[in-house]
């Protein structure tokens, strides 16, 4: 089980959280101008990175808030946690 550090509540076990997938996917500013391929990319295409990956978590059974994390998907080690809207902090490579 992962130990996840909620930026609001501190270190908690994984079962308190739900996963939110890839981070920093911005909703299109002008949705009406997107063509089918751009919608496909937004809705379905994910980086699915093998390595360092920025992702969202939600502290569903705690404060209820979304936040971001950086995790190495080849080891499941977390490198950083930060609030939604912030840029990823520097983390040890």
């Amino acid at each position, binding site marked *: 089980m992962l130990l996840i550090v909620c930026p609001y509540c501190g270190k908690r076990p*994984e079962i308190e*959280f739900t996963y939110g997938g890839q981070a920093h996917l911005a909703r299109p500013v002008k949705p009406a101008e997107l063509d*089918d391929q751009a919608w496909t990319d937004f809705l379905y295409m994910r980086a699915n990175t093998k390595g360092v990956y920025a992702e969202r978590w939600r502290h569903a059974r705690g404060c209820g808030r979304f936040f971001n994390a950086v*995790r190495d998907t*080849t080891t499941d080690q977390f490198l950083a946690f930060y609030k939604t809207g912030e840029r990823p902090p520097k983390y040890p490579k």
Partner: protein
Amino acid sequence: MSRQSFSALALIRRGLSGHLGWQKQWRKAEPKAAYDAVIVGGGGHGLGAAYYLAKEHGLTNIAVLEKGWIGGGNTGRNTTIIRSNYLFNESAALYDHSVKMWETLSQELNYNVMFSPRGVMMLAHTVHDIQVFKRHVHANRCNGVDNEWLEPEQAKEFCPPLNIEDNIRYPVLGAALQRRGGTARHDAVAWGYARAADALGVDIIENCEVTGIKRDEGGAVRALETSRGLIRSRKVGVSAAGNTSVVLRLAGVRLPLESYPLQALVSEPIKPIFPCVVMSNTIHAYISQSDKGELVIGAGTDAYTSYTQRGALHINTHTLDAICELFPNFRRMRMLRNWGGIVDVTPDRSPIIAKTPVPGLYVNCGWGTGGFKATPGSAHVFAWTIARDEPHPINAPFTIERFRDGYLIDEAAAAAVAH
């Protein structure tokens, strides 16, 4: 090279001479400079595709590249369940194509894959389950796929260890039974295809990781860079399960895939007690008994994407909670081993077996939590797609473009994932 054939007579003859003189089942091939077709990924789907390319499409200068050892990925990590009771016409056609091939696969390959159509029973625990399963039963029968509705007493008759009392959190309200479904020996599938493909001249190259995909001026595939040198080929089929999006990115192709850990576990071996396969998608329990006697139990996927081939213990515990309620007499059994595989999940839980935007590059992926059952059928239509540069009618709907064009095959019969 001439191939020893397996038969009862051969077994007796070798047995009398101390089992000496059995051949190696396939050659340890060195990579050649060029092939007519290369399959990336030496699991059941990849080895099978190479076999059908050689057998049915006359291509014999073929290599299968595997970064580890053959059958060491999801082919060796699944719970070996075979069924075709999928809702939609497209899925029913694909999975039933596979079940029909399972029925004769041992004879086809002259290798005992231990296909055992012992019946797959899917439990209903809610009113919604009952409605959905009855809809599946009717849809399946319209598609010529056997599936029947059982009342709880009939379910218990089919699987005596099942608890149908109403004293559990999610009592059994009925079940859908596919009698033609069952299990097979997963390792034997990889080995059988490897042996049969090798006999047709296919080079099976292990410890060979693809690190780059070279393309010509027109954008078509020209060669693969690998950890064992450059290998030229104009046709490349990728069948790399959880790592497919990593391989395809080498050619600049994006896929709607996310890779999740999926876990399974086995118990200590016991005498035969469990006559069939029982699945409960609602409370996440998937169980059968292997011929060795172990209870083989499938758990759900972990919450997050990962490539670690391991998952969290609470996922297994959750499944065991359900197993212990459904089968109270297993409560004191010990679990021997657990492990994880990395499954590539598509947004609609249906696979992709298709051409890619890159000429000469083909992909067979997105099998998610249920690829083993499809091994022969998937391999068969993938070989067709590679050989003819066009899909077989069965896999024609399973394109990458369906996500752009809105033709999703939103298959809620897939196991172990939330819908």
